């Protein structure tokens, strides 16, 4: 096949990827975006297969079939609560592919001397390898194979810095003099080790930022491969993916009022010491039936979901409660904090899965302005994102934007017990006069309230 025809195919594919992201901006056109992406991908693959330098088809067919055989069940069997894990795993796979291609291309270089290509390839390997192992650790933490809490030891930052700088020096030496000897393998080992060490000290609540950041790294590594292979399609796609990851990471950081380096090199999470007096101060609590009755008589309710809702798998029961209340004429909306959950958009996907219409999911900034007109704010499995301590600049979470549930007329908090949240800070919300604590498992409690409401309905 004429290589120029393939070039044109690549260009069309790049255009389709750009269209795909354009259509992704709104729910009404988003599925069209997926189709555009699929056509672009098909063009790119078919175009590559007909290139004259591709002659070995047997192994390619086997690998494509094997990949599909793993990919299809992965997509259909994965429960929606496991989306963060799947995302971390796919970053690991993507980065693995990129680093292996980089290694294979690099092995062809020795003896050629320093070049633009050797520089791009070592950069690609460095970023690809560390993203791959870092994503695997993130996956293990999200899947709870490894402990979710930050794993720290003395001298950690110094060790990390030393390993990263040695790997970076190795990359420079290899770029200047491409060689397939011990130095290459040590470089590979160091880059992989750095990825593991990078994510070990990061706690569960910081996962949204970390996943987004790893997404960005995977994209930039793919772009570097495009530079090495002089392939514009790969450069464009990697840049789009990288930009997406960085923007999401920035949004997450802003939603926690923290910097990238603060997320990566600790700060939050290591002090889990309970605040003085926690668990001893009096709180008001109430029963399922009473809470249901109060919700029924409210006219405007805002539900604030958090990671606890995902852990308890309560989204379907929450949706049931939403429907019962809506049927009784109560206006119910869901206020979504950008870092609620374990990845960007986590809560939205769970509630959409449970059939909550998306126009009832509102962003933090939109709901805060009208919080004073809300009768009841119902907090389900969220803690730090509604903690007024964030308004105190001296607090550990100081400056973090929060959902102002304390401005609502009444607050209800569903919670297992009085343990503080991830940041280890007590939450003043619990002790307010207008707050009622609903103690219990989120799923059982919400389900009980929904039942109580429908029971009352049948009695009319």
């Amino acid at each position, binding site marked *: 096949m004429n290589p120029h025809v393939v070039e044109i195919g690549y260009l069309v594919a790049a255009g389709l*990827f750009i269209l795909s*992201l*354009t259509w992704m901006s709104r*729910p009404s056109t988003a*599925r069209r975006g*997926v189709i555009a*992406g699929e056509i*672009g991908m098909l063009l790119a693959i078919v175009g*590559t*297969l007909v*290139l004259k*330098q*591709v*002659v*070995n*088809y047997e*192994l*390619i067919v086997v*690998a494509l079939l094997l*990949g599909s055989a793993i*990919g299809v069940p*992965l*997509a*259909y069997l994965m429960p*929606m609560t496991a989306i963060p894990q*799947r*995302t971390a795993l*796919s970053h690991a796979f*993507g980065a693995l*592919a990129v680093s*292996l*291609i980089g*290694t*294979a291309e690099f092995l062809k270089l020795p003896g050629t001397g320093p070049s*633009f290509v050797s520089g791009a390839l070592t950069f690609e390997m460095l970023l690809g390898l560390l993203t791959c192992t870092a994503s695997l650790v993130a996956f293990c933490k999200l899947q709870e194979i490894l402990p979710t809490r930050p794993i720290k030891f003395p001298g950690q930052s110094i060790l990390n810095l030393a390993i990263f700088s040695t790997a970076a020096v190795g990359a420079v030496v290899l770029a200047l003099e491409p060689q397939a000897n011990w130095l290459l393998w040590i470089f590979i080992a160091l880059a992989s080790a750095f990825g593991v060490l990078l994510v070990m000290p990061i706690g569960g609540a910081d996962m949204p930022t970390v996943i987004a950041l790893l*997404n960005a790294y995977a994209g930039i590594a*793919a772009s570097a*491969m495009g530079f090495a*292979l002089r392939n*514009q399609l*790969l450069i*464009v*796609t990697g*840049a*789009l*993916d*990288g*930009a997406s*990851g960085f*923007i*999401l990471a920035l*949004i997450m950081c802003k939603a926690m009022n923290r910097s990238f380096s603060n997320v990566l090199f600790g700060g939050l999470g290591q002090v889990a010491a309970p605040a003085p007096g926690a668990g001893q101060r009096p709180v008001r609590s109430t029963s399922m039936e009473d809470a249901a009755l109060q919700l029924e008589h409210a006219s405007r309710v805002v539900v604030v979901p958090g990671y606890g809702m995902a852990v308890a798998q309560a989204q379907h029961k929450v949706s049931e409660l939403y429907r019962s209340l809506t049927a009784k004429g109560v206006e119910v909306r869901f206020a979504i904090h950008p870092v609620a959950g374990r*990845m*960007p*958009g986590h809560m*939205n996907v769970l509630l*959409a899965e449970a*059939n909550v219409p998306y*126009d009832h*999911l509102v962003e933090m900034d939109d709901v805060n302005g009208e919080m004073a007109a809300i009768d009841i704010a119902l907090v389900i499995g969220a803690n730090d994102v509604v903690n007024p301590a964030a308004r105190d600049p001296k607090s550990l979470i100081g400056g973090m934007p929060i959902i102002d549930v304390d401005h609502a007329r009444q607050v209800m908090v569903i919670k297992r017990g009085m343990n503080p949240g991830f940041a280890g800070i007590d939450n003043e919300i619990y002790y307010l006069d207008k707050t009622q604590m609903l103690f219990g498992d989120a799923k059982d409690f919400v389900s009980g309230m929904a039942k109580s409401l429908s029971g009352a309905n049948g009695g009319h």
Partner: protein
Amino acid sequence: MTFDSSLIAIFMLAAFLGYHLIRRVSSLLHSPLMSLTNAIAAVAVVGALLVLGEGEASPLARVLGFIAVTAATVNLVSGFLITDRMLKMFKPRSRDQ
């Protein structure tokens, strides 16, 4: 092979375009957005196919290429399918009732 500034220019333009496209994506769709960009980035399979399909590839290159094609295929297949699975669940109120 020498330095080629046009490749850098392409990268800069694409990153700039990406920044503005992604900024417009509703926060509602950030999870499916992530799986979509992940699927699209699996276009790295192109590089993997070139490694695996080459006539005079060494056995080591073939092994690396084989794993790379498989890993990228897993990503592109599962990425597109799961994005669509998520998007199907997002329904506006009008269609819900």
